[in-house]
């Protein structure tokens, strides 16, 4: 079985988002980075499927040179190798991201055969375009099921559970397929120390796609105004309990 997972490096923004002077990006000078939670679950699912069925797993990302950290994180969890589509740090829109990933996936499939499953996050944590996985699936002419909270192999098909308002919808689609997943699909493992060691020597293939002019072109970012909550102190410690109960009573919830 062959599985690919596409991930994105995003900043850990903490309690307040600060923008760069030109307001075209988040000021990440003092921030750490991570892979988005949805994709972390995609990585975990890929590792579990390969553990159970044997085969080859590949993680792909389009991102700056530093995104190799997130590729290593995925390999520390058990992914076999990585493909890094290197950018100069500029943002790519969903359309161009999908096109570049598609090229890399096609090139890998030409040498190694088709992926049974390609995982994506349902939407990226930062730009939230909701489209990259679906575009890649359409170009490959493969079924794509989105927003998955559970994935089960059933012979040459995959049973997918999608979270909806009143429960879960079930889809069964033939492999090969493209699946976009959400956090909650599984509980990703923590990387072990030997896992981290092994990840250092796993192969990372670099490609440098050219960035097309974006058709969804970012002009500037804005931090929305706060909700104007007044932060009234009810006191400190256990002595504040009566004031809290007063608030509950006034709110009509007691």
């Amino acid at each position, binding site marked *: 079985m062959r599985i690919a997972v596409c991930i994105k490096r995003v900043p850990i923004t*903490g309690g307040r988002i600060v923008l760069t002077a030109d307001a075209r990006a988040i000021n990440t000078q003092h921030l750490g980075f991570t892979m988005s939670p949805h994709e972390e679950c995609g990585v975990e699912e890929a590792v579990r499927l390969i553990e159970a069925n044997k085969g080859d797993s590949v993680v792909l990302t389009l991102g700056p040179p530093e995104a190799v950290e997130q590729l290593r994180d995925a390999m520390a969890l058990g992914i076999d190798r990585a493909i890094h589509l290197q950018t100069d740090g500029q943002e790519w829109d969903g359309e161009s991201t999908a096109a570049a990933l598609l090229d890399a996936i096609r090139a890998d499939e030409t040498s190694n055969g088709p992926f049974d499953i390609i995982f994506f996050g349902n939407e990226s944590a930062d730009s939230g375009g*909701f489209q990259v996985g679906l575009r890649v699936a*359409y170009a490959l002419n493969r079924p794509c099921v989105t927003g998955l909270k559970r994935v089960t192999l059933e012979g040459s098909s995959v049973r997918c559970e999608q979270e909806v308002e009143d429960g879960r919808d079930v889809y069964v689609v033939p492999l090969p397929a493209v699946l976009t997943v*959400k956090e909650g699909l599984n509980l990703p493992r923590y990387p072990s120390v030997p896992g981290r060691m092994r990840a250092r020597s796993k192969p990372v293939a670099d490609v440098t796609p050219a960035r097309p002019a974006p*058709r969804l072109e970012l002009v*500037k970012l*804005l931090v929305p105004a706060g909700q104007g*909550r007044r*932060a009234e102190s009810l006191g400190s410690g256990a002595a504040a309990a009566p004031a*809290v109960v007063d608030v509950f009573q006034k709110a009509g919830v007691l």
Partner: protein
Amino acid sequence: MNVLVLMEPGEPSRQALTLARKFGEPHGLPVQAVQPFAPDALAAALARAVEELDAGAVFAAGTDRGNEVMARLAARLNLPLAANCIGAAPGDPATVTRLRWGGSLLEEARLHSPRPLVTVAPHTVPADDGPQPPTIEVGSPALGDLVVRVSDHIKPTNGGISLADAKVIVSGGRGVGSKEGFAIIEELAGLLGAAVGCSRAVTSAGWRPHSDQVGQTGTKVAPEVYIACGISGATQHMAGLKGAKRILAINSDPQAPLMLNADYTVTGDLKEIVPAISAEIRRARAGRTSS
């Protein structure tokens, strides 16, 4: 000029319709036209209607269904898609304002497209009370567009009050300290008839299931009162709280972002404060029944 709107039942589609009117004369294609739900068949029907009406733009609500059908349409038509917009204006290029980071950040963008494809973030623009658009007939779908279709439905396991609908939520973060530490959170929730929520730090540690997580990659909530115990208030957590009417923060750090963005705060150790609140509720109730 004609524009197309993918219509779902409910307010978000009426909001999308409101923005669509700025681009032209709307025609509606109901999501229920394909039963059971089959997103490729809907995208194909939209693509046909775009041709027939020579539609200048296509809109949908930025719901899960709306976003996925529109992304499939964008792939078919080889056009860009602007998802989760809170504003859009026609022009060459069209301009949009859209949500990033689950609403913690806004983006102004130009959409260079002969036919703008736009989804409208739910509950961000007021709906007008203009007329319902005429409905487009959907022909029978091609078999290939029915490979992805809903074949079964699982009802939610009745695990108490759902987070999304809860009137009161008692939510715990890393400050709760352990899985067992949630006993005092559950006790207070029980007394208030509240749902239990948590932060991602808690679900990552395996203390609570992901279905309890509030935030950008968890559930967006809209209770009368949200009680945040030992939660710092990262932007991704706050992204789930925009609909909360009142927020009470309990935290040992008075400078925690949640303490600055709450309506009421109590400073100190939640392990003392939460049981004291439960005791006070019991006392108030006992007083009420005895008087």
